[in-house]
């Protein structure tokens, strides 16, 4: 420890090696991962999300939804993700290649959302918008994503069927609309070659994707 240079070199190596190993190592492996082109369907997966959904992803990010929701399905024999209907296959790296900001999440206070777009609640945009306005057990209402507006002339087509003071209506803001579009776009269900569930006997060999 007497030699300052060796000491600092050691410190530098400590941070550099872990970075090179974990970050650059996986970068080499996954950095070039491209969408998978399905010739039968004539398009590539994962599909790019529509512009409004990309805006919704920013809303999801700035509200910190990932504090309670994960977006990663674990393989069928690891936890009960499949049994809970969160996804038939495990999530793989390719699912996320087209997302600007990946939010895997670390807490499941709320359910996993990786395949949320395929669930009954998400299929109907009106119902999902209404859902965000009302509290549901563990999830609070997000009323600040809505606007209470005086009805002038006809009622707006977007107005919620929620109780509003007489002469007023509840309208989702653009943030609410884009968040709903984003949630509907979450749909990691396409079966990539590397994502096909392995048979239990073969599963013992490893977990490589």
């Amino acid at each position: 420890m007497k030699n300052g240079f060796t000491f600092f070199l050691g410190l530098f190596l400590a941070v550099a090696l872990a970075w090179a190993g974990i970050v650059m190592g996986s970068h080499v492996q996954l950095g070039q991962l491209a969408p998978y082109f399905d010739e039968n369907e004539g398009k590539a997966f994962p599909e790019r999300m529509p512009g409004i959904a990309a805006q919704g992803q920013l809303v999801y990010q700035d509200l910190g939804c990932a504090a309670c929701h994960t977006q990663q399905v674990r393989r069928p024999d690891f936890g009960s993700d499949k049994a809970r209907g969160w996804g038939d296959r495990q999530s793989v790296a390719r699912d996320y290649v087209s997302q600007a900001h990946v939010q895997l999440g670390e807490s499941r206070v709320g359910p996993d959302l990786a395949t949320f777009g395929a669930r009954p609640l998400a299929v109907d945009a009106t119902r999902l918008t209404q859902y965000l306005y009302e509290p549901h057990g563990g999830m609070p209402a997000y009323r600040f994503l809505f606007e209470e507006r005086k009805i002038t002339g006809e009622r707006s087509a977007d107005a919620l069927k929620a109780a509003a003071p007489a002469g007023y209506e509840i309208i989702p803001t653009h943030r609410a609309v884009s968040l709903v579009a984003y949630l509907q776009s979450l749909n990691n269900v396409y079966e990539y070659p590397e994502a096909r569930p392995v048979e239990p006997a073969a599963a013992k060999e490893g977990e490589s994707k």
Partner: protein
Amino acid sequence: MTTAPQAANTAEVTEIDTSARWPLLLLLGSALLWLVLSGILALVNLMQLHTPEFLAGCSAMTYGRSSAIQETAFIYGWAANSGLAVALWLLARLGGAPLRSLNWVVAGTLFWNFALVLGIAGIATGDMTSNAWLHLPGYVLPMLLVAYGTIAVPGVLAWMGRRKEMTFAAQWYAVAALFLFPWLFSIAQMMLVFAPERGVLQALVAGWFVQGAWTLWLAPLALAAAYYLVPKVTGRIIPSYDFAQLSFWTLLFVGAWTGGRHLIGGPVPAWVATIAVVSCALLLFHYIVVAVNLRGAFCGGGSTVLKFVAFGLVAYVVGGFLDAYTAMRGVAVHTQFTHFSEGQSQLALNGAFSMLMYGAIYFLAPRITGLAWPSVPMIRAHYAAALTGTVILVVTLIGAGCVQGHDLNTATIPFADIAGHVRPWLLAATAGQAILLLGNLLLATHLFWLAAAKAATPAVFNPAPTMEASVS
């Protein structure tokens, strides 16, 4: 400590301490304000977990944002400010010369805290980046980096210009923390915020950064305090000191590799998780050496400083073993994504880091001000509150995690019922957090009282124990 005046020992306080008084008090004062703020928000968060409608109408206080603000205030507010103050002070003491360029510390602290206020306002109003431990918006990150550098300058000068060729474990840890954080922080900024990596690589960078910020920055800061205080207060040399160096390098070289343990079963290469599991096991060597080296903390003979340190060390070592245990796949499948992980991080942050910092603050504040702590009962009350609060918080969160993990993995239990099963545990955790907050309010009040005191009670220190290898 100043609680048992026997013989005035003027040599205990030198120019090294008094010259750094105001810069260090500025760092500590800001640290404690952030600690109280983050404590209040932690209370709000726990209440939101068991009563989701609490403050739900306020967009700045929605759970996602308030928990991010809480974490940011704790790490960049409390931990950074207090850790830097303690590291600078002990580098000066062990280097044997007063800190130089203290104006840099003052300027850096002001800028650091200003940037942090700005960043937290950004999170509250919709600029959050949603990266664990790096929720701050991009526009304050470069300012934080520069401010950190300026605060650290006197520490580096104290190391380079030290009067003794020989160095101590406390110095290694302090210098490592000062030197490594800017690397971690700047790489994480680049790869997550300014030029984000592609796809799941973001999650890998985030995992590496969070683990690195703990094992290469916060844990070394806390250990620097422990390695200084234990021999200093007990007056005994560190047993098995030869291993300390090996343990230090083990933490540095193996620590950051354990980042993948949160990604077990996730959409990342399986080898990342496997390396994390192996590294967690390797790191046990470090925890064992720390326990052996610093076991003197448990025979402190009534020293309040050592009581805090002893608790912090227990939390640190237990936390290390718990990390290794929960990194195993068979266990992770139950604990992952639950309050169990939150309990583990509270054990590390509130249990290990904060407790060691409290001990260091009680030791250094009278020395830099030259004044005795105004109230001994307040110190005792803080210790009691910090101890019970942390134990309740950690145990109940872990309990909640076990229930939640079991329920999540039992598909026949409807998802909506889980919140109800976990609720009693979270109510108890809220009580724990409230007690902890009360204790931290006591410490903050006490420090401001001490700083405002006008030489009313000059500090009288216990005679410094003589040591074979002591430079200050």
